[in-house]
């Protein structure tokens, strides 16, 4: 007990506070274009910097290196290589899949950046960095990054 404070005879009183809020996230014109292509055409689009020529996927509006505005879209095959991954074996309410499942960062062919997504149709004990992957799209698509159901090993 700290000096000169009253003695607590029963239990310290600790008040509960509830803070629950819902938020929206604007994906902007650039994000909307990317998500619309996923939804309408099952296409994965990258965007290219006019100064350094790096291709970003998912796209952003300004190049992180040059602060140049980017507007040149590049259609990607969707195929790529796994650059890192983790297998999730615990459950939280915000998760997009029932565990166990794997998250991976996919280095897309024709792009300079990795893209995070879920790995599917794969033995969780046999995932290897460098393995080739391709996207599997959902039947019902709504303009979400989860319109790609997962990436599966490419034949």
């Amino acid at each position, binding site marked *: 007990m700290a000096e000169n404070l009253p003695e607590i005879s029963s239990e310290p009183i600790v008040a509960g506070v509830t803070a629950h*809020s819902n*938020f929206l996230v604007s994906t902007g014109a*650039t994000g909307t274009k990317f998500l619309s292509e996923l939804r309408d055409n099952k296409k994965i689009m990258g965007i290219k910097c006019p100064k350094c020529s790096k291709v970003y996927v998912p796209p*952003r509006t300004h190049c992180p290196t040059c602060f140049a505005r980017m507007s040149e879209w590049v259609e990607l095959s969707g195929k790529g290589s796994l650059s890192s991954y983790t297998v999730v074996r615990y459950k939280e309410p915000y998760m997009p899949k029932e565990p166990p499942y794997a998250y991976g960062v996919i280095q897309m062919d024709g792009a300079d950046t990795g893209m995070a997504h879920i790995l599917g149709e794969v033995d969780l004990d046999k995932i290897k960095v460098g393995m080739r992957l391709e996207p599997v799209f959902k039947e019902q698509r709504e303009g979400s990054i989860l319109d790609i159901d997962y990436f599966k090993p490419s034949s």
Partner: protein
Amino acid sequence: MAERIAIVGVGQTHHKSKRPDVTTAEMIAESVERCLEDAGLQMKDVDHLVGGSFEVADGYHCPDKWIIPELGAVGKAGLELQNVGTTGGVLAVASFNIAATGLFDTVLCYSWQKMDEAAGAFGRGGGGANEYWTGQFPMSPITNFARRTYAYMDRSGCTEEHIAMVRVKQDQCALKNPYAQLRLGLTVEQVMSDVLLAWPIRRLHMCPTTAGAAAFIVCPEERAKKVTDKPVWVEDWFTCHQGGALTMAEDPTSSTLRHACEVVYKRQNIKNPVKEIQAWEVYEPASPAELRWMEEVGICEDYTAWKLFEQDKVGIDKEVPFNPSGGVTATNPIGATPVVRLVEAALQVRGDAGEHQIPGKIERALATGYGGQGENVIMLLRKTL
């Protein structure tokens, strides 16, 4: 010995209620692009960044990790800060402090709020900002300014009509400011018949929810003189805090603004503020707050500011050019709002405010940030050293 510092560039977005066309980071980048263009600089010239918003109202945590890449500023020195409504003021003061060390040449301050994404989260702000004793009785800014305004009216003789006059003045200023959000063409009758939120506060009296961003660049003297021939000197700055609303034992109409101004006026030997300061951008979260703030900054005697409105003495080209931009009741991207005040004050000093430029030479301008239930940040700008 601290360096003398000057603002060399400013930028802001055209403030709107909704900006679904941009992400938060893209919206900030828009203000930063305008700021860099105004200064004639590029991102590669910036060597320190200071940024932030009122994070609780945004629903984000550590957003700098995805804002910095959008700004092309990966690898640069940077700080992210927040302090509810005064966030922009705290960001500005931190930027001034950093520039005044002389350790960095070109400090970029960026600020934002994208309230179209907050979906009502701000409603809890009044409770969440307070300790247990007041947090159990959460007062939003609406109820708090109702309480303050009622006390003010009770003491001063100010009526609902006078408060409506303040709102109309703010709107008339905003109509001349293309960056302002609410530009409505209001009449006193319209304001007085608007939806009542908590007497005497009507919807039109409260600051709106805004999506917007504002930025500025501040440099030490030597660098500032190289960058621009129109530096705006930051003469002094001060931050001042106050306890939660219901635990305040003092005058319910007052804030820390009077004390903060007294400190700065004494340091700069300002004896007659209404003569020595020619432009005011003072953060008023609700229209009637402007009355008390005018008294607290030293423009007029206690409980008399409403008479200046009755006599039609307040406006861009009138005796008291108070909040020529239209103020916070026209535009309120919370985390950026004090930076908007600073940007507008700097434009007034430069003579670049456009249609809402105050006529005559502006030697000094005072901008403030307000937050919580009484915190104030003072930013005093000067044309000549």
